[in-house]
């Protein structure tokens, strides 16, 4: 099963794991990653912008790629858009597989691609106003880990 969604309101990051457990009874392994807005550091809010014609189709293609590459039984990709407060979940990736390594690697693969190749633009609000977050070299390097094989 595949469940890929963009969400404009806060979500329960525990739900995808439970959904996979219910819908993929043969899965011996379910791995979940939850990314949150870091609290502290002077950030008052984070805003995620997307472009509807590209963002969700891109996430669906990523999910299909991960399902095939790791032989998953199920995959959930949830990503927030809009304005978020510190501590709120931004992203949740949950993968179900027969064995643990495929589930764990699939989550890692999806996160590396979501961070550096998905169509999101982020800006954060600090005391002196809004600042766009620029691409980071680490994210592109993370993505290259998956270029072979």
């Amino acid at each position, binding site marked *: 099963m595949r469940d890929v969604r963009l969400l404009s309101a806060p979500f329960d990051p525990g739900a995808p794991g439970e959904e996979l457990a219910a819908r993929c009874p043969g899965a011996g392994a379910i791995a979940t990653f939850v990314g949150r807005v870091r609290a502290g550091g002077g950030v008052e809010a984070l805003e995620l*912008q997307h*472009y509807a*014609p*590209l963002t969700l*189709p891109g996430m669906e293609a990523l999910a299909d790629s991960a399902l095939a590459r790791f032989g998953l039984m199920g995959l959930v990709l949830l990503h927030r858009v809009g304005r978020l407060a510190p501590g709120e979940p931004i992203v949740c990736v949950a993968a179900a597989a027969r064995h643990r390594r495929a589930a764990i690697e699939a989550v890692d693969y999806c996160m590396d691609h979501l*961070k*550096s*190749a*998905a*169509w*999101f*633009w*982020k*800006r954060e609000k600090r005391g002196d106003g809004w600042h*766009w*977050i*620029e*691409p*980071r070299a*680490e*994210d*592109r390097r993370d993505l290259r880990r998956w270029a072979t094989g």
Partner: protein
Amino acid sequence: MVFLGKLADLAGTGEHVIATSERCDWPALEGHLARVGGDALVEAVRAPGVKLAINGTLLADKRDLSAGEGDEVAFLPPVSGG
């Protein structure tokens, strides 16, 4: 025209409608961009990392643009990491 990320700040708007009956290629587009956001917007869109999509399809080379009535051209700066 749809401006994403910091390009919307340079354009002063997230969306801008061009009223023209002529087809729009890259040189014509630069003229429209200059009228919306001046040279700063033109330079920003020329940057190698900025991609264009027409009606939701990415262009391999943005200079191949050919848009007409009703088409939506999106200007996509590099996505944020972090």
